């Protein structure tokens, strides 16, 4: 769809151009009429002067005296002409040189203004006055060459055209700027939405025009809802886990009771089934907790979290002299902290379990987040690698602490459309797990 700015801009520009063209024609017409009106006034003066000089002679003839009006009517082709008609007799001005001026007849006490083509094709403005004197119908036509006036008008027209264009273009410029300025808040909202998608922002808080306030409010509402839903479901699952796990602990304890010494098969059954329930709950709860690739993720600092995780693992594996080396960026990264800790915790736990003394963890941000966890343990044979994440899905095959962790990692990685690869570490010689998560987009 066309951008709002373009759409508004085009519409306004079209309207502006139309208005200016109409305006220009109107102004042109006004200028021309004003000039002609003035000219007609002069022609009328001359016409009336001629009318004044009409005299009546005894032989029932009407004659006029051109002596009193301007001498230009006597100069040849001067551009000023007259034609006096008394009844059917025509008396052209000497300046006409016998050019037949096709004047239009008018009735008594009427006048008419119109255009004619004069000698040598020059445009003429003609004023014809009608009168009845001494019983005769008299038409006096006075004409003037419009060429000179046309010339003046053309230059005025040009100047006015230039001025109009200047005003039009400045108006367009100002309007465009105004449109861009009015659309600023929308662009700001767009930028903030990008930040929300990128995780650097939790809600949109630009000061927006009232038309889009409902839109922004709705988006903010949805964003809040996502965070709250996640929080609620995580809390609920935590509560459920909490409620279920104490009974399972008691079941496990019951399986140890001395009463069962006589029934070892019963003890094994109780123990195994309890473990299976536990694994099942564990797996499904952990899966349900995965936040995945969603815009409300809060940022975390990988280096700081890794150092805390390292301390935790050193405490958990206190009996083992482990050297955990950490490389991680020391700034905020926008991936869900819980998910990332779950990936890192499981991979590290696995590495610590198998390592003889060294574990190497690397987090790097390039096109996405890349996590490498290597250990110096026995590693894993090539043919077993592909089965790793599947272990723990068949619950009865899952051994305590084996497989389940990597399965969860695989689930989380999948939720982020990332990749999980296993192999052999080239520096430590043991197992190497590589997780790459793309940056959101």
């Amino acid at each position, binding site marked *: 769809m066309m951008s709002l700015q373009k759409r508004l801009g085009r519409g306004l520009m079209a309207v502006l151009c139309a208005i200016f063209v109409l305006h220009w024609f109107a102004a042109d017409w006004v200028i021309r009429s004003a000039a002609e009106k003035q000219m007609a006034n002069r022609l009328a003066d001359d016409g009336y002067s001629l009318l004044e000089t009409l005299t009546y002679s005894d032989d029932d003839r009407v004659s006029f005296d051109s002596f009193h009006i301007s001498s230009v009517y006597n100069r040849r082709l001067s551009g000023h002409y007259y034609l006096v008609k008394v009844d059917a007799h025509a008396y052209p001005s000497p300046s006409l040189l016998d050019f037949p001026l096709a004047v239009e007849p008018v009735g008594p006490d009427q006048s008419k203004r119109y255009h004619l083509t004069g000698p040598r094709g020059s445009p003429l403005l003609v004023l014809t006055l009608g009168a009845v004197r001494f019983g005769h119908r008299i038409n006096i036509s006075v004409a003037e060459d419009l060429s000179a006036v046309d010339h003046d008008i053309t230059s005025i027209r040009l100047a006015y055209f230039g001025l109009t264009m200047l005003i039009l273009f400045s108006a367009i410029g100002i309007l465009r700027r105004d449109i861009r300025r009015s659309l600023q808040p929308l662009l700001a909202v767009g930028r903030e939405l990008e930040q929300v998608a990128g995780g650097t922002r939790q809600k949109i808080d630009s000061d927006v025009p009232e038309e889009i306030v409902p839109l922004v409010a709705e988006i903010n509402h949805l964003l809040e809802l996502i965070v709250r839903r996640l929080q609620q479901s995580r809390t609920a699952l935590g509560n459920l886990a909490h409620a279920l796990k104490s009974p399972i602990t*008691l*079941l*496990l304890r019951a399986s*140890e009771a001395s009463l069962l010494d006589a029934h070892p098969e019963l003890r094994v059954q109780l123990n195994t089934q309890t473990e299976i329930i536990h694994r099942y709950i564990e797996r499904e709860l952990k899966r349900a907790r995965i936040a995945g690739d969603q815009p409300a993720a809060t940022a975390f600092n990988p280096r700081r979290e890794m150092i*805390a995780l390292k301390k935790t693992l050193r405490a958990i594996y206190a009996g083992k002299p482990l050297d955990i080396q950490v490389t991680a960026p*020391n700034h905020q990264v926008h991936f869900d902290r819980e998910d990332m800790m779950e990936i890192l915790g499981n991979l590290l736990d696995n590495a610590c379990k198998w390592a003889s003394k060294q574990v190497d963890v690397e987090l790097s941000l390039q096109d996405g987040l890349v996590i490498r966890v290597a250990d110096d343990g026995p590693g894993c044979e090539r043919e077993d690698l592909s089965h790793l994440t599947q272990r723990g899905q068949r619950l009865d095959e899952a051994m305590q602490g084996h497989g389940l962790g990597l399965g969860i990692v695989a689930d989380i990685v999948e939720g982020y459309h990332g990749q999980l690869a296993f192999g052999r570490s080239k520096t430590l010689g043991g197992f190497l797990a590589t997780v790459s998560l793309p940056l959101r987009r």
Partner: protein
Amino acid sequence: MRLLLIEDDAELSRSLQADLANAGYVVETATDGELGEFLGATEPYDAVILDVGLPKLSGLEVLRQWRQTDNRVPVIVITARDAWFEKVDGFKAGADDYVCKPFHPQELLARLQAILKRVNNLNQAKLKVLGVELDEDEQTAVVAGNTAHALTAIEFRLLRYFMLNAGKVLSKAQLSEHIYSESAEPDSNVLEVYVKRLRKIVGSELIQTRRGQGYLFGFKA
């Protein structure tokens, strides 16, 4: 050995108390956070077993309050919340060990024994050589009592290797082995760059160049 067990599930508390008593511990119990916090702060226990989900005051809050008042009693946190971030937050609050529900009673006993054994020599993650103090957890170096200097991963690895081998001449090949990680490609110049950076941090006289042999961490003889 005198233990404090803070657990709100009466059945679990009773059975754990029995197991612990069988193992030869004197066990006192509390069923909520406030009482547990008070007991732990006033009575001298050898260790505390603390549930996280407690009424009145959460287990982590109890732990935080003790650690704030410098109560160093060893604490094993037992919890049903076993996400890794929760474990990390538990250790951040000052837990010494973490046991996730459900657990076998023997597992808890084993953890308890381990923690009682190592309680005195834990938290010694600091290496101190020739006036340089390296915090292995935080990856920071303190030189002659100045403020802590944060090290990059490679600087940290190199410095630690130097400090662990103070006084020995270390070849470039030997050092390279200890600084490269999975993604890095070995490059002979990189090592020199990092040695140069370390000299800026710990002082140039501390790392000497032995022509044709390598580097030596230690004072000039």
